[in-house]
């Protein structure tokens, strides 16, 4: 690494930006997980209909779906801030950690069952998403 590179690595602005990215990615995982938990709770309270009119009517009378929308709006803003400072191909794979947190929180908060077959299924999915993430990083490195 060049001397100029080392120097800029130590500058407060770069350090702050790196902390910003780490914080942004952590927040992305938290918001993703919270969004899924709230969405599940909201879905259970809504009528079982695929009609947009029925769903929209129900949403207007229930604060939970609005909370879901709020979380996803925050998620969008946070994600755009992360992408200002980090490459998508690096940022995206890290957020696949939410596959772990969603399962953990659904067991802990919603009391969902996690038997061995489910654990193997989710682990395979996580492995697959991880491999695709590694592929994306490798592709970004080779121009």
């Amino acid at each position, binding site marked *: 690494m060049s001397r100029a590179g080392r120097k800029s690595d130590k500058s407060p602005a770069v350090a702050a930006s790196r902390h910003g990215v780490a914080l942004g990615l952590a927040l992305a995982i938290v918001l993703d997980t919270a969004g*899924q*938990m709230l*969405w*599940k709770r*909201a*879905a*259970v309270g*809504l009528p*079982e209909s*695929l009609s*947009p009119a029925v*769903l929209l009517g129900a949403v207007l009378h229930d604060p939970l779906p609005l909370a879901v929308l709020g979380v996803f709006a925050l998620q969008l803003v946070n994600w755009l801030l992360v992408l200002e400072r980090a490459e998508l191909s690096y940022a995206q794979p890290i957020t696949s950690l939410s*596959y772990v947190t*969603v*399962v953990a929180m*659904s*067991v802990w908060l*919603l009391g*969902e*069952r*996690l*038997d061995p*077959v*489910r654990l*193997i*299924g*989710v*682990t*395979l*999915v*996580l*492995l*697959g*998403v*991880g*491999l*695709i993430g*590694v*592929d994306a990083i*490798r*592709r970004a490195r080779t121009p």
Partner: protein
Amino acid sequence: MNSIWLGTLLAIACAGVEGVAQMALKQSSRRPRRRSRWIALGVALFAVEAVLYTAALQRLDVSVAYALGALSYVSVALLSAMVLRESVSVLRRLGIVCIVAGCSLLALHG
């Protein structure tokens, strides 16, 4: 139809719709003259996906529904290979095989 099976089908349909939506957004950057139409189509498909996912969550545990959502990686890869003629690397194929295996296990086990 069994409610869990319907939920599973709805979650799989979500992944398909997501793939088409991503394709529409990609097309918006490739075809500047019809940009807004492709973006509108993408956003409309995301709204459809939200309704389908809500219906899926009414029938499935969120831990299963969310994991099945990873099938969108498969639909995106298939569509980019077929429509956009992008190449799919060996590593990505391996990832897709793992996702399909994991989702099949979750879908069949319930």
